[in-house]
């Protein structure tokens, strides 16, 4: 009995080790580049971030929040959300006040428009100097007043080289009947539509109903060859060779490829979606000064490095990108060279009317199945 248990335990350990092969170092902050005081010690900072989106000390990695607490005496109350929309609903309801939120581009655009986030005092965020020029002046915050980029990603096509012939370079392969029942797609309307829109050469932020109709017709065609609509299940399905083709985020592909070297990745020629998740301070934050300190802390070269290695997404922080010890230094998928850069488009906040229109179309697509 004991032996069986040990064996089982060993298997479990191996499995978890496999899942998080990215970033397994223990670091304590040695040379903070910013200055941190105990001025706000004893206060609480409510941080609202995506799930699995911070180096949290698991597997011996750097524990970001614990390090911040040790440095400043501020207690971090860390909470997760699953989608921008869920974050927005929580923030809007005002039931809890958050001091830091980390939503994506189009959601920040909406938050600024609706006056739900406040301007940051950049004189207290010295480490902003590390942010790459490419991620400054972004469309949702053109004058860099409200947000500080945290993590960057792009969607690409993941495929299994043993199951797919040749090297696909177009989203079109997701409609190929040859791979019927081996194709996955996103289980959310915006991302699923974007693929059809790129393929048809339609603007992903279009407000034209006819354009959305065309994309919806294309997606209905896809129903016949789809195996399933997935989000996180994509890891299991692609690593286990239960499906051949799936669109997903570049950083997550790296995690999958660690577990199955037959997986390959391409940015389709028609273009793809890029996103930037940025740190913001909501209007009703209770601990503004501590929040600024937290933002500065997140930009610390060591902290940013630990987070970039843990999340495996691209970093907007030059101290990370240019660090030759960075595990993903020069990775051509996360940081494609200038001539290999895919055509990219950001999501913009779409007006309510268009949104409810495409949501209705999405419902039809699901019911059509």
């Amino acid at each position, binding site marked *: 009995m004991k032996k069986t248990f040990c064996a089982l335990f060993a298997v479990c350990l191996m499995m978890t080790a496999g899942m998080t092969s990215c970033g397994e170092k223990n670091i304590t902050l040695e040379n903070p580049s910013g200055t941190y005081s105990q001025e706000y010690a004893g206060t609480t900072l409510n941080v609202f971030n995506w799930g699995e989106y911070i180096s949290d000390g698991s597997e011996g990695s750097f524990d970001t929040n614990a390090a911040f607490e040790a440095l400043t005496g501020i207690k971090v109350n860390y909470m997760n959300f699953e989608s921008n929309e869920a974050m927005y609903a929580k923030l809007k309801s005002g039931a809890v006040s958050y001091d830091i939120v980390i939503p994506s581009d189009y959601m920040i655009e909406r938050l600024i428009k609706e006056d739900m986030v406040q301007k940051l005092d950049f004189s207290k965020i010295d480490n902003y100097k590390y942010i790459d020029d490419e991620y400054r002046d972004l469309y949702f915050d053109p004058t860099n007043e409200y947000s500080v980029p945290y993590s960057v990603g792009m969607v690409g096509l993941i495929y299994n080289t043993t199951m797919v012939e040749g090297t696909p370079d177009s989203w079109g392969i997701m409609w190929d009947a040859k791979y019927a029942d081996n194709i996955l797609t996103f289980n959310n309307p915006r991302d699923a539509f974007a693929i059809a829109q790129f393929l048809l050469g339609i603007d992903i932020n279009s407000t034209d109903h006819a354009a959305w109709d065309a994309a919806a017709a294309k997606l209905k065609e896809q129903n016949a060859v789809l195996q399933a609509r997935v989000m996180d299940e994509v890891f*299991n*399905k692609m690593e286990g060779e*239960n499906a051949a083709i799936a669109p997903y985020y570049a950083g997550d592909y790296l995690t999958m490829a660690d577990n199955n070297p037959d997986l390959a990745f391409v940015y389709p020629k028609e273009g793809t979606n890029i996103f930037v998740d940025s740190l913001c301070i909501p209007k009703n934050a209770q601990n503004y000064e501590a929040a600024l300190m937290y933002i500065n802390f997140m930009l610390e070269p060591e902290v940013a490095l630990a987070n970039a290695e843990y999340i495996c997404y691209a970093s907007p922080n030059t101290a990370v990108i240019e660090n030759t010890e960075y595990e993903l230094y020069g990775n051509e998928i996360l940081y494609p060279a200038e001539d290999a850069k895919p055509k990219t488009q950001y999501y913009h906040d779409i007006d309510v009317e268009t949104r*409810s229109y495409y949501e209705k179309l*999405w419902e039809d697509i699901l*019911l059509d199945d």
Partner: protein
Amino acid sequence: MKKKSLAQQILGAPYILWSALFVIVPLVIVVYYAFTDAEGAFTLANVAKLREYKEVFMISIEYSFIATVICLLVSYPFAYLMSRKKGATQRIMMMLVMLPMWMNLLIRTYSWMNILEKNGLINNFLGLFGIEPLKMIGTPGAVIFGMIYNYIPYMILPIYTVMSKIDVSVLEAAEDLGSNSFSKLRRIILPMSMPGVISGFTMVFVPSVSTFYISQKLGGKIMLIGDAIEKQIQSLYNYNLGAALSLVLMVMILICMALMKKFAGDSNDGLIM
């Protein structure tokens, strides 16, 4: 009805408050949302839209009914055997029923996903003998199987409870009076265990018909009512249609329970719901 004493009223007050707050109020909110639009104006549009979901409702009922019947067929003899065993054997049988329930439903279902996958455990095993992989994941069979696997303890336990209450001397008396095994089952055990069957039926059917996790993980593109509701609330943010769908689901479940009550007749032994 007997008048309740003051003590009883005081003891009951927290429960009444709790139910009012967390059962009645949410129900009222569901009804409110179902009959209003996004701006809060009265509308029947959500209810009218339910027609498009006819097929979704049909397959949800069909799958969960099949799952419940199979659960019953498997559980009945098992529960009978378990109730007639003693000591260690009975404890082990009980353990086997309870053991999977120590794990979370989500984890259990996720594991089945890996077992039933195209390239999962079963197909890999079959592959050793050169058998072509079977298509299991994404089929109605996988969803029904998931329901059975997850909810079968809720069928076994109530049936077992009523069966263990059947006095052995009653069965002996039946034998003395010349009953054969079949008539013993038909005239004694079956009628006496009916309350357990009905309660098990409800306890399996209700969660099966409203599940969304099982169909999402094991069903590929199969959409049940639970999925439809979950999609409206979680990704389409149409709380109104989501509420209308939930309302119909609740009415359906209530009708089902009322029918069950009717079958049960006066005897309420072992009825949990």
